[in-house]
């Protein structure tokens, strides 16, 4: 699905990631952890071609990121669902239109029943007409997850999805992600919430990666 080979990323003020080697296998579930500023978000951005590595190769669906045209990048992102901590909604559109935005930009119509089912699955069936600013943090995160999966992506990347929600809502979001993984989706969650990771390990066979000294390591049993 997504592979990193000797990848380095330099923001200009020094190297943030170095010698990163990783392969996200289809259907796998990964957590990526590390302190703030360690490069978790940068790693995710490299994974959906928002950034290009300064060294090494990033391959998404067997295509090297540097060889992708802008249209190729757009097409790739239709197969990668991304959930951001700040959700990134279009505040002037109602929730339903935000959730179906990937379909809209792809020129596809959304089936009202499918949309209703999806919103119901994330527990937002009654909020389709609400504008994003009126939603709570948990509702926004679940809506962002719904938007990320509406195109039926192969991979779902989540950047601190539980950063702005309480523990109960964190568990609810985790349950949704685990369900998606059981449907065969490849999941990568960047988080610094170790309790969430511990909770997930009881539900799913997740690998935990840790960014330390600019490199990605497999975390041990200390988590």
């Amino acid at each position, binding site marked *: 699905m997504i592979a990193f080979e000797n990848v380095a990323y330099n923001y200009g003020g020094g190297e943030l990631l170095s010698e990163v080697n990783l392969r996200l296998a289809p259907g796998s579930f990964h957590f990526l952890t590390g302190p703030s500023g360690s490069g978790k978000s940068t790693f995710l951005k490299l994974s959906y071609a*928002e950034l290009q590595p300064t060294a090494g190769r990033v391959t998404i669906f067997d295509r090297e990121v540097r060889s992708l045209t802008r249209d190729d*990048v*757009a097409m790739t*992102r239709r197969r990668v669902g991304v959930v951001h901590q700040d959700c990134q909604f279009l505040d002037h559109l109602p929730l339903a239109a935000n959730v179906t*935005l*990937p379909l809209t*930009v792809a020129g596809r119509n959304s089936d009202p029943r499918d949309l209703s089912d999806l919103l119901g699955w994330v527990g937002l069936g009654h909020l389709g007409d609400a504008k994003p600013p009126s939603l709570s943090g948990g509702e926004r995160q679940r809506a962002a997850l719904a938007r990320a999966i509406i195109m039926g992506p192969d991979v779902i990347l989540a950047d601190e999805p539980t950063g702005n929600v309480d523990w109960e809502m964190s568990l609810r979001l985790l349950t949704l992600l685990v369900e998606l993984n059981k449907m065969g989706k490849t999941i990568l969650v960047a988080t610094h919430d170790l309790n969430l990771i511990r909770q997930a390990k009881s539900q799913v066979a997740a690998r935990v990666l840790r960014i330390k000294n600019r490199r990605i390591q497999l975390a041990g049993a200390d988590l």
Partner: protein
Amino acid sequence: MNALKSLLTPDRQAARVVPPTGFTAQLTLFTSAAMAFLAVFALALSLASGRLADRWSSALAGTATIRISAPAEQMDTQVAAVLALLGTTPGVASARALDQAEQRALLEPWFGPDLPVDALPLPRLIELTEGNPGYDGEGLRQRLLAEAPGAVLDDHTRWRRPLAVAASRLRLLGLVSIILIAGATGAMITLAANAALSANLPVIKVLRLVGAKDSYIVRAFVRRFTLRALSGAAIGTVLAMIGVAILPRADDAGGFLTGLGFQGFGWLLPLLLPPLAGVVAFAATRIAAFRTLKGLT
């Protein structure tokens, strides 16, 4: 071609993804309306100048007048001598003496219809038509001086020519003004589009994040600005055409100023301005949008 096709095909969902921006919308509408208004007057000026240049040019088709002042008893002799002289002058196609009725008609606007032409010591006039090639004006003057001392060549083509040239230049200036107006419209719409694109950068980033192609994002902005420019220009054009239509009609006494307007099919020409504004807006917004997107991943 695809870009034009997508412009004409309304996509309500695509149009909704970019929030309406009141300020740039009004700016584009006002600019297009004002520019179209000015362009209509520049066009009217250009066409009027063209007509004037044509009129003066046709008048230049080579006519001149010879005025003969002589004692009454010598007048007929002098006229005959001048006509004979003109008959042998190379470059003179024809020459004829104006009769008294024609001379009275010429003076009538100033002295009224009851002027006793017979009783007044008026000079006689001979109208000559220039051939191709024309005659040698200076040579003719010298011959008239030698053979008919009371005859004076009034070569009015010589002073009308600079006026015709000036009218042509005025027409050119009118056309240059229209080109400048189109350029200024493009510049203003580029500024407005850039402002809208900058204001909507977060929206554009979200659209890219969820897999929108550049062409989709550009289309949303281009369609919006093109339609605004088109509507603004249509309003400006209609208002200016009404303004031109209520100008006083052209007449002989009014001359150039009252002739500032459109005639016949000329009334259709201003209708080209709204589509022209649309094309300018389409190109300006498209270039600005692609340039902005190039800086985003």
